[in-house]
């Protein structure tokens, strides 16, 4: 291989990582002269930091997180897109009688702190005439689905619409998901690839994006065969009902052009966060979305 690349995921391997796993399994990386080592994080806030510190070459992050990181001065760039729509969603428990975000007044919302809650949830509430102060935000760590299923909170923010919703369904919990982009929050890319702005390797990234694009195309064309190949990556942990359901829901979410970027969308979302005081400086999208092709 011409290049060795280490890639750290945002979470344990799940259908969101379909294109990466397929590119790995079907040898698309190898075709591009890449040898990619896939690592899973234990603490989801670590991957971008490790990239910034030069310990890994690439990581999966989220657009809002990247904006925060860049605003804080971390030497990061977006190198590609994995999922180009929002996935994050506000899930409510049907039995708590919530029909719309407007009913959330006085309720408890479980979050797994990502730093953007005040802007996103606050905007959704405002959209329905409520204030951020009307709800109680509770950090529930990584037990998003469990805290909702056990009724300790009335809603959760931070679960993904293609994953945690299915998890709840499998636990026989009746829940409804409200999508932020339908309630006043600007749209954004949920999952992106990031690299170190000082040391990134243009050629490697180009090759990486090509392999991902080819894998995504294959998945969209042959979802069932792709599923089999996805599962074969680690049958022990991947072959279960939850992943099967999540796979279906992820098919329409993968970015068909991983290298493509809409700078205006990044600037718009950054402005949105700046307006809500989430970031103190306003980075320009062009600065952390270098032209690689």
């Amino acid at each position, binding site marked *: 291989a011409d290049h060795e690349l280490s890639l750290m995921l945002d979470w344990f391997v799940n259908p969101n990582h379909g294109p990466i796993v397929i590119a790995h399994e079907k040898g698309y990386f190898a075709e591009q002269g890449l040898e990619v080592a896939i690592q899973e994080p234990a603490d989801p806030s670590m991957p971008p930091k490790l990239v*910034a510190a030069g310990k890994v070459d690439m990581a999966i992050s989220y657009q809002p997180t990247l904006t*925060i990181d860049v605003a804080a001065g971390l030497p990061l760039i977006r190198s590609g897109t994995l999922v180009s729509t929002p996935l994050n969603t506000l899930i409510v428990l049907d039995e708590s009688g919530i029909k719309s975000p407007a009913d959330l007044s006085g309720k408890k919302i479980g979050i797994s*702190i990502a*730093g953007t809650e005040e802007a996103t949830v606050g905007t959704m509430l405002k959209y329905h005439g409520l204030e951020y102060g009307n709800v109680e935000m509770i950090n529930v760590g*990584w*037990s998003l689905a469990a*805290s909702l299923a056990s009724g300790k909170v009335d809603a959760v923010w931070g679960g993904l619409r293609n994953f945690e919703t299915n998890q709840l369904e499998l636990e026989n919990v009746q829940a409804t998901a409200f999508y932020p982009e339908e309630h006043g929050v600007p749209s954004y890319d949920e999952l992106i690839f990031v690299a170190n702005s000082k040391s990134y390797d243009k050629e490697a990234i180009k090759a990486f994006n090509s392999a991902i694009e080819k894998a995504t195309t294959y998945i969209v064309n042959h979802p069932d065969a792709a599923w089999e190949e996805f599962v074969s990556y680690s049958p022990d942990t991947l072959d279960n009902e939850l992943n099967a359901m999540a796979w279906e829901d992820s098919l329409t979410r993968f970015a068909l052009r991983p290298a493509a970027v809409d700078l205006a969308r990044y600037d718009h979302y950054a402005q949105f966060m700046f307006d809500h005081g989430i970031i103190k400086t306003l980075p320009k999208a062009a600065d952390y979305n270098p032209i690689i092709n």
Partner: protein
Amino acid sequence: MLNVLAQPLSPIRSRRISWLKKALQVLISISVLVVLWQAAITIWDLPSFILPTPLSVFDVLTERYPILFKHTWVTAQEILIGLLLGVSIGLFFALQMLLFAPVRRWLLPILIASQAIPVFAIAPILMLWLDYGIASKVAMAAIIIFFPVTTCCYDGLRSTPQGYLDLAHTLGANRWRRLWHVQLPTALPALGSGLRVAVVIAPIGAVVGEWVGSSAGLGYLMLQANARMMIDEMFAALFILSLFSVALYFSVDWLLKKLIPWHA
């Protein structure tokens, strides 16, 4: 004049000086730490998102102290109640094991097994049982604390010199009064060890509790700061936590010295 100066210092005065000396020592050791910290940053060229400079942390401490104080207050309550509970449970188990041989045989393996379960692992489940209020954090702190207290106290209670036990026997003490008047006093130094360990790790319990479920407190603040890449704020919270441990340790140390004057 010379004569007066040559006189030994009055106890009160020399006590004040020794306090000053202690305070100075703490101050110097903090300074050394700060210098080492800055040195680490300089030598290994650590970026600020991994380890912020002491100065930036100091800035946060001075500028954002109202917020820090609010969260500190929450965590302080959790720590103190957790300590009370954990130490009580620890003492209770130790006494149980001392007094009732069957309890020891059945309880001890369970207690030990329970300790090996990382609180982090059961923390999320604990939250689901106890709600996200103060109770779950207090429980976390108590769980972390009680085992060192139990072990040290039980070991201390077991090691009463035989002569004293004989004395209690011939003086007609029943097991309760023997415990209270003979075994507990001799166990105090060992119990002291347990307490010292307990107070130092109590803050971790509370913070870990906050990490898996909370809406306020230093742990919550740290998560929030971490998510927003305000690492200096996170370290400011860490600094306050450390202060807690140090302060608790020296308070307990001082208290124990008062309580065990017959012991070196």
